[in-house]
């Protein structure tokens, strides 16, 4: 069975909000109607977003790390938001595991948002229906788009490529490999929701170079046959 999901690399995200902007742009222009925006240019703008980037400071000054944390519906495998819905407006698709809200059935009772531990469902104040990330269900299957554009808007927008999209049930997919090999984890595992979206942790990147690696056969500046020392890069004084 397919379970589409996002994998978000916290080591790569720079907190630019491009995903937020593109998500809003795509989802406010769709057939379902515009996402509310109250006072967009006022002092306290507020509105509906399917995806938000939050920022946290981890550690004690001066040893702090700034972590940008994109957050949207995690398309849980065991979503508590679905069974509580009295109208059946909230549902999880069997075919690809996407959790969706049928805007024509939703009565805006907000019960589903109480059941979700992550605070990713937002009632649209204008339309008075519950809204949330759809994994851009209206573009990922659109055969009018070139194959490489059939991805969620946030994934396409992310400049450093911090967002991966794919089937987490397929062990050979890009997302499954990333989760497996780069320590992908789920949010609040204790809630028992089995989120499909995963996060890749921060990593300390260090570059270890041994001297002999500079004297490689594929080094274009190598002087053939010269002794080892002569083939090392010049030190500053020599320049």
């Amino acid at each position, binding site marked *: 069975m397919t379970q589409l999901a996002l994998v978000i690399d916290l080591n790569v995200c720079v907190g630019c909000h491009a995903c937020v902007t593109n998500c809003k742009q795509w989802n406010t222009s769709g057939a379902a109607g515009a996402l509310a925006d109250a006072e967009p240019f006022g002092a306290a703008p507020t509105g509906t977003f399917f995806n938000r980037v939050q*920022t946290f400071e981890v550690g004690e000054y001066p040893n702090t790390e700034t972590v940008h944390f994109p957050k949207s519906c995690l398309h849980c495998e065991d979503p*508590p938001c679905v069974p509580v819905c009295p109208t059946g407006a909230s549902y999880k698709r069997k075919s690809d595991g996407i959790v969706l809200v049928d805007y024509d059935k939703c*009565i805006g009772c907000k019960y589903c948002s*109480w059941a979700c531990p992550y605070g990713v469902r937002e009632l649209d104040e204008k339309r008075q229906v519950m809204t949330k990330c759809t994994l851009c269900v209206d573009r990922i299957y659109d055969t009018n788009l070139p194959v490489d554009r059939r991805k969620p808007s946030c994934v396409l927008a992310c400049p450093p490529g911090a967002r991966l999209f794919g089937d987490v049930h397929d062990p050979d997919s890009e997302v499954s490999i990333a989760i497996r090999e780069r320590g992908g984890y789920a*949010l609040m595992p204790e809630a028992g929701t089995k989120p499909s979206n995963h996060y890749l942790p921060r990593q300390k990147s260090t570059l270890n170079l041994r001297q002999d690696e500079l004297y490689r056969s594929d080094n274009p500046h190598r002087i053939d046959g010269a002794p080892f020392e002569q083939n090392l890069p010049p030190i500053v004084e020599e320049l």
Partner: protein
Amino acid sequence: MHPALSVLLLTTLIGAGQGLFITMVVVELLAAGSVRPGFFVGGTAIVLVLCGLGLIASFFHLGHPERAWRTATMWRTSWLSREVIALPAFMGAAFAYGVAHWTGAGATLAIGVLGSLLSLLLFVCTGMIYAAVKVLKEWAHPLTVVNFTTMGLASGACLATAYAGFAAPELVGALAKAAFTLTALAMVTRGAALLRNAQLRPTSTLQSALGIRHPKIVQKTQGSMGGSFNTREFFHGKSAAFVRGILTAALFGAFVLPLVLVITLPILAFVVQYAGLLAERWYFFAEAQHPQNLYYQGVS
């Protein structure tokens, strides 16, 4: 959680109505024949008015009230859906009970027992709406169901006492004793829940919410500057002193004062208790700490 007035009104109004209905049926069971049918007809009218008002209030909670009929469809999984079915079923039985007494059609006791069962079922549905939300640990406990039932029964019995003052004065003494007992019982069960909740420790932490183990994490932005649905729906936005004040009002209004008043001044007892239960319901929402709040701790 943010307490919504519509839900406070709905749960307190129908609770009193359900309690009043059960009290009437118990009266019929114990003192059949000695009470004139007018008592039951008038009482049923009060039950229906209370439930009707509750129903109207509940519509203000919905974004799309015109689609409310859809809420009856998911009764297999949703307690909210079950409540939506149980409430009209109870009101239907209450209506039939009143009509049967009015017309003298008989079978009143059978209808009354059926209505009482539906009333209890409705208490269970209402309580389970909250008790079934696993992430809200303050609610996810059988005591939630127990409390909706005991507090509804207590206010219904208080109301029955007040009403009997007009409709069946010979019952006032016995009903006042019942109201006193039920109010005391409600105080014990609600008190047990308060004590339990005071000892709760949250299961989720900022560390598990982000998957970052460092003990010191401070939020700097939350993806919105003017607030969002998440800051409006899940925070009560009042000071700790205000919340404590409401709790005091709830404990005195819903339990202590009615216990003092119900024997001598049943009408006042009911009014004070109803106001106290509104405060209790407000506190019930305010005391529930939603784990999503971990993601909404600061904007700078």
